[in-house]
């Protein structure tokens, strides 16, 4: 709101400066653009699905601006549209977004030092930006990757959600276009790398999915998904959970605290080939 006061502590701005496109190699910029494109498709379907599910246009639009987290938005809207209630919707979304805390710890020093950079930048932390940041070798490129991918993604996401919501309200029946299959497919593409990488995660996820699907016919929307967390217990008691403690950061680039991201983060971005 108040942009009047300037940075009071210029000494902190050492080694800072504006981010430029030229700070990143062409290949990285191309990957970032591909992710923007992919997320635009997802954003359009999010907007359209939300409206098709009976929500007013402003719900997906406001949610995209303020929450700005794809999977949590999808789940919250899905639960709201299914009549699961705002409490279950918010709770599920928050649980899903709790992982963002881990990401934000991992990318914290790539935002820049100023107060504004930290507080604005925090809102741009997503799976995608974390993945791009952690794939960069040095501080300058990390910062550039964060702000370029983050600001672009924020713009693309919100514009495409708005477009999808408006289109959805015109089109009406989005089921005809199979958009209801898009969201589960998005999640599948997101989690596949994590599932591939780790058998403990696979066990926990399989147990959780069985629990959730079995509970879906009898429990209110949103609750079955939360119950799936019981899958964590099942996996822990499974054979050989101790082996989990072994080193698992197979990605060479994740030299920092990027362990969590190393497995999850690249999931979305891996598709367009961020490993270049």
């Amino acid at each position, binding site marked *: 709101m108040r942009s009047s006061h300037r940075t009071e502590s210029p000494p902190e701005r050492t080694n800072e400066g504006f981010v430029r496109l030229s700070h990143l190699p062409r290949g990285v910029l191309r990957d970032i653009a591909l992710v923007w494109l992919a997320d635009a498709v997802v954003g359009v379907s999010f907007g359209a699905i939300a409206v098709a599910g009976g929500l007013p246009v402003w719900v997906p639009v406001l949610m995209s601006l303020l929450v700005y987290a794809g999977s*949590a938005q999808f789940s919250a809207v899905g639960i709201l549209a299914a009549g699961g209630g705002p409490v279950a919707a918010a709770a599920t979304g928050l649980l899903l977004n709790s992982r963002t805390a881990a990401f934000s710890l*991992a990318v914290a020093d790539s935002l820049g030092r100023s107060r504004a950079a930290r507080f604005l930048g925090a809102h741009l932390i997503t799976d995608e930006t974390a993945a791009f940041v952690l794939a960069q070798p040095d501080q300058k490129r990390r910062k550039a990757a964060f702000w370029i991918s983050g600001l672009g993604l924020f713009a693309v996401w919100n514009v495409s959600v708005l477009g999808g919501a408006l289109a959805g309200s015109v089109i009406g029946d989005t089921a005809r276009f199979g958009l209801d299959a898009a969201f589960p497919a998005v999640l599948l593409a997101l989690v596949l790398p994590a599932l591939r990488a780790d058998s403990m995660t696979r066990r926990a996820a399989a147990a959780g999915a069985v629990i959730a699907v079995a509970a879906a016919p009898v429990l209110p929307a949103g609750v079955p*998904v939360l119950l799936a967390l019981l*899958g964590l217990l099942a996996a822990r008691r499974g054979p050989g959970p101790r082996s989990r403690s072994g080193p698992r950061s197979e990605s060479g680039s994740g030299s920092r605290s990027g362990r*969590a991201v190393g497995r999850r983060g690249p999931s979305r971005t891996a598709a367009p080939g961020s490993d270049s």
Partner: protein
Amino acid sequence: MNAYLACVLVLAAGTYAFRLAGPLLHGRVELPARLQELLTVGATVLLVALLATGALTEGHGFAGWARTIGVLAGGVLAWRKAPFAVVVVGAAAATALLRLAGVA
């Protein structure tokens, strides 16, 4: 009236708090590795449960074959490392085609 608004605001505030954790705590607190791992695995478990219920159920019933098969098609594409956009469009297109062919 505005259960929706309340939901959006609570979710937004909570999410922003999670995102501030890094910039605010950085250098002061390190999450225990076990907790970090648990958060990561927990997030995956949630996502898989969401996609499973999303692919198979609608309300309290079965979602129908068109959606289930469409998601499966997307899964195959993802498994074969197709680009993200192809996975999404492929799943939607498969479901749309099945519906066009009269499959519910």
